[in-house]
């Protein structure tokens, strides 16, 4: 390479830095005195009583995250392109979590001690972060900058110190208590765990099939239900018999979805023309699944509460031969949404159809126009006469629009009760509002 080529290279590349980092961070954000048994007052007719309110864990320790990262900073073309890339690996040990304990441990319910915090295992997070800032146009009157952010994270549980090696989280609605997520070694945290719907009983022949030995076998039915209007009938869901034991019960639950996104991204554009400036920010995530949990109750036409209008799409049944008997072989579906079950004739059948399954799983990807702000700076010459240094009028719009296929109010769901193991469960979460702001900035 001769000197002139080297010189050209220097004007292209302004900065190239390679970074390597390593660190450890501790965390002890659990309630105070979790290591001992705290007593809380409870009224009684005998005077104030005192009852143990938490379960002590004298072995409790700090949680530590060890992280290492490798990054590259690149500036090119007179800093018109700035590119930052980071690859990281984080390992968390002695994870602090509320431990699950069996019902006979007396750690759930009114009057019970709360479950102890335990250093329950280890977790790894690894991923990639990319940032690209560009100055696209930079004239005297007009400039346009763009900034792009891309993040990808993969999470995996490395060890879990529970007896069974799994950690479940449940939701309770009235008397219905259901496990909604399961965290297990080798998988990401908080995976949705439930039944799988594989079809609907539409013909009499759906109740039987030929197995590997070519024998006619009955399709697995939910435990305790038989073919009949009060049991399993045309229009009810077919669930996957995961363990192939011929009956659908709690052992046929499996991992049905992942609340964690494949990647998340943000796009920002800033325009300025003379004294006007316009800033548009978009952000989105892609590839995550969410559970619209309330649909279990609001889409069941048998419930006697207010319902979603989609509940009207239930499968309507009619007799194939109007003079024939009401037998499952003489019944067909004549109308209704092709994914909805029939109105069950008994509460057992209704509970069966609306059990927690992938029926309530939806694609939670979204792209949201997060912020549009538009402002005008009054020219110096104009405002100096009034003794002002700076006068800006602006309007700010937040949460302008969301592009999504999710049928609930708002796909940006986060974690229920700030519990990371209950991420992606929409249990009637209050949607983010759209905020319009109009403002005036005055500097004296």
């Amino acid at each position: 390479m001769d000197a002139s080529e080297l010189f050209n290279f220097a004007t292209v590349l302004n900065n190239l830095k390679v970074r390597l980092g390593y660190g450890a961070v501790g965390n002890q954000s659990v309630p105070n005195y979790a290591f001992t048994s705290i007593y809380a007052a409870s009224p009684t007719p005998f005077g104030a009583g005192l009852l143990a309110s938490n379960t002590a864990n004298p072995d409790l320790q700090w949680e530590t995250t060890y992280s290492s990262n490798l990054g590259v900073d690149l500036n090119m073309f007179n800093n018109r392109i700035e590119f930052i890339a980071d690859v990281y690996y984080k390992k968390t040990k002695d994870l602090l979590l509320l431990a699950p304990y069996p019902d006979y441990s007396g750690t759930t319910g009114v009057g019970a001690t709360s479950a102890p915090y335990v250093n329950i295992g280890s977790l790894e997070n690894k991923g990639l972060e990319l940032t690209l800032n560009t100055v696209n146009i930079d004239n005297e009157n007009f400039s346009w900058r763009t900034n792009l952010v891309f993040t990808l994270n993969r999470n995996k549980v490395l060890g879990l110190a529970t007896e069974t090696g799994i950690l479940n989280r449940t939701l309770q609605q009235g008397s219905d208590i259901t496990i909604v997520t399961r965290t297990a070694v080798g998988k990401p945290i908080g995976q949705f765990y439930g039944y799988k719907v594989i079809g609907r009983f539409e013909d009499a022949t759906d109740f039987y099939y030929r197995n590997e030995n070519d024998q006619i076998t009955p399709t697995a039915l939910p435990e305790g239900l038989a073919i009949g209007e009060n049991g399993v009938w045309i229009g009810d869901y077919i669930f996957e018999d995961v363990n192939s034991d011929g009956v659908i019960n709690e052992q046929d639950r499996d991992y049905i979805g992942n609340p964690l996104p494949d990647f998340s991204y943000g796009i920002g554009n800033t325009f300025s023309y003379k004294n006007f400036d316009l800033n548009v920010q978009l952000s989105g995530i892609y590839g995550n699944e969410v559970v619209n949990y309330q649909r279990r109750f609001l889409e069941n036409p048998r419930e006697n509460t207010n319902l979603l209008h989609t509940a009207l799409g239930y499968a309507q049944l009619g007799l194939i031969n109007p003079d024939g008997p009401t037998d499952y072989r003489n019944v067909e579906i004549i109308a209704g949404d092709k994914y909805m079950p029939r109105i069950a004739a008994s509460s057992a059948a209704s509970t069966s159809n609306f059990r927690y399954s992938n029926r309530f799983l939806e694609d939670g990807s979204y792209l949201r126009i997060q912020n549009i702000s538009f402002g005008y700076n009054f020219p110096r010459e104009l405002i100096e006469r009034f003794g002002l240094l700076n006068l800006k009028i602006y309007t700010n719009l937040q949460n302008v629009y969301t592009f999504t296929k999710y049928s609930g109010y708002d796909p940006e769901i986060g974690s229920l009760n700030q519990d990371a193991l209950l991420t992606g469960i929409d249990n009637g979460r209050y949607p983010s509002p759209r905020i319009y702001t109009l403002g005036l900035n005055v500097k004296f």
Partner: protein
Amino acid sequence: MLFVGFYSCSDELDIEPQDQIAKENFFKSEEDFRAATAPLYNRVWFSFNDKFYFGLGDGRSYNLYAPFSDYVYPFSDLTETGLTGPLVEAWRSLYIVIQQSNNTIEAINESAVDEELKAPYIAEARFMRGTAYWYLASLWGDVIITTSQAEIISNPIINKSPRANVYEFAIRDLEYAAKFLPEQAGQAGRVTKYSAFGMLSRFYLSYAGLSDNPNSGTRNQELLNLAKMAAAKVIEEGPYTLLDDYADLFKVENNNNTESMFALQWVPNGEYGVNNPHQAFFALGSEITGDDAAYGYYTRASYDVLKEYETNDTRRKNTWMADGDFYPEISQATGGYTVDHENTYVNVKKGVVGSNSDNPDITKQNSGLNTYMLRLGEIYLNYAEAVLGNNASTTDATALMYVNALRSRAGLAEKTSLTFNDIFHERRVELCMEGQFWYDLVRRSYYQQQEVVNYIDAQNRGTITPFTYDEVTNTVTVDDTQDPAARAVGVVDESIFSCLIPNLKWFKTLC
């Protein structure tokens, strides 16, 4: 480096909370012990009282018919599974009592107070624990016995113990309580040594029928004798006496009366967790409660239980309210409450007490009425049943005297001899809606299983019979103008006497 080493094991590094009550700075005196055993009378029993007291005791035995209450109908329909929410909650609720009792016993044992002062308080906690274990043994049979919450936290997998061992454990707890509880309650409502003997008479009767042959037809005579002695001790030496009027038992102003031996102590106007929501579940309408917490329109007497009552039995009106019944203590401002609707259904009265204007201790969703867990009336019946024992009938004068005391209080004629069915019937009507009848059926199934299966079969839970009710004569008549409705119920066989243990996965590694 040597310098640093001296400070690593200093006591100054052990922190005791200065602003909170922790185990280390509590349990230093008898007042502390009293404060520690007090919540064992209400808060720890809250979940059990809230739903399962009547859901299992009266729902599962089909005294109660509540087809829309999901903590009653799975039990009356015999369709619950190990995952049915209410069954899981019932199981949990009993272990809350057990673990908090364990915590209290452990803390008292570890405290520095004089040993003789500790015994009566440990006895109170063991009374509670033993009672909870009796419920567990009766409902589930083989259950987990645990005496330390801290041990479970470090080692959660525990084997189940066979039912007989659980009964023995409960009996042992109550025998300790009978030895160390005081003769007189320090505060009205606390249990005494005689409460423990009374509870023992029930436990001995329960356990007496258990053997390898559920159709043996006979009970263990030694246990029957123990039951008789325990009951006799309560009746003859204890401070308890029957109230003159059955209706007075269920009035808020009579909480902790002379017949009450162990009752859950709710706090009038108290917060959630120390309230008694029974009235909200049972009251027919808001005219009774004076507020909108009255969900009992469809919580009704079953056709089967209405057939039990004899014509003049005043206990019917005090347990169930029918069209035409008049209650002067409810809606006193308007001169009393008369039930007025079609005479085709009968709602719950026991537990329904009126509105805040009738008694200021009654507030929304909190009747303030203490929940009977044991009263003298039951001891009278326990005595009679223990005396009857394995005989076909008895004319024992004392047994007759006790049963007739209950009958004449109810306005009924006296009996001259007692058969098992007489006593069984008296128990059902005397203790109806006090969460007892299912346990009577269970303990009878230990030695007369087929008879009980037949009895429950004859209750015909799968058919809802339309009827009309005459409140004056306590007569229920089938209404031929209406068709009976069908209801999907489970199979009635010997499996109904032991519920499925919830959350089987914890036992997966053991089976």
